[in-house]
């Protein structure tokens, strides 16, 4: 038993906070200007993808270390 699951959990925590921040900022922006939803959505998705990638890299490395 090594610390990989714990490390993965930690990574998930950080990434979840990041995703939440992006989501909340985008939501408040959309709520303030509903006509700009189309313009906000694309950058939001891109940012989400980049943050998510960090976790995927961690997952990738972590799962490889489990072996």
């Amino acid at each position, binding site marked *: 038993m090594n610390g990989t699951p714990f490390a993965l959990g930690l990574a998930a925590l950080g990434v979840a906070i990041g995703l939440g921040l992006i989501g909340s900022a985008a939501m408040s922006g959309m709520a303030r200007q509903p006509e700009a939803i*189309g313009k906000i959505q*694309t950058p939001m*998705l*891109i940012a*989400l*993808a*980049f943050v*998510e*990638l960090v976790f*995927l*890299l961690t*997952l*990738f490395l972590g*799962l490889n270390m489990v072996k």
Partner: protein
Amino acid sequence: MGDLLHLGTTLLAEGGAEHGAAHHGANFVGLMVYLVAIIGVVVYLLADAKKGLNNRYFTRWTTQRLEQLYLFVENMAVGIIGAHGRKYIPMVMTLWLLIFFGNLTALFFATSPTADLSFNLGLALIAVFYVQWEGMRANGVGGHFKHFAGPKLSGALMILTPMIFIIELVSEMMKNLSLSLRLYGNIDGGHKAAEAMNELGKSAYVPFGAFLMPLKLMTCVVQALIFTLLFCVYLSLVTHADHGDAHGEAHAH
């Protein structure tokens, strides 16, 4: 056909046995079987939709859906790349269809093309090299490489230019990695999560993993969207000097 499927599955099983429980995807023939199946489905749908084409409104279901998809992609391409983004639509549409149906395969089968890092790397390589190709066509070969070197610096700061050049090159390489790993991680991660949850409910014979289905379906769409979206963004970064310098300057800073 049955024989071929049998061949694919046996090869798949062989691959699974060879690499233990590793999620390695199918081997070459298995991958090709999946790919041919996906392309067959896509072409069948397109052929079905083609029957409904006319110069008035479309009434055939497949035609309507594909028109929606087409208009969505067109909107995305034109919105991100600009007016000249229209010529990249076939590329983006093909990528979208392959990735989306690959992801859908992942919902119902043990493996799928998009759950295979090699397949994703192939798609990412196509995307990135197409972007380079378009950049060279738009700015010329020299102009395209100058683009890597960042802004013009003078005096002692000239030392920075090669460093920026190298960093930019590495980031181009990383685009491949990020595109392919994102798709792979999402689809394969979905598989892994479903398996882990199935393991959880094994004693009670409850397939908890099946409850992940809606989430995975959403992932299918979102991943296809993000892959094509990023492709469009990369294209817009290299080709936006195409139409007017003022716009390019505005974007560069």
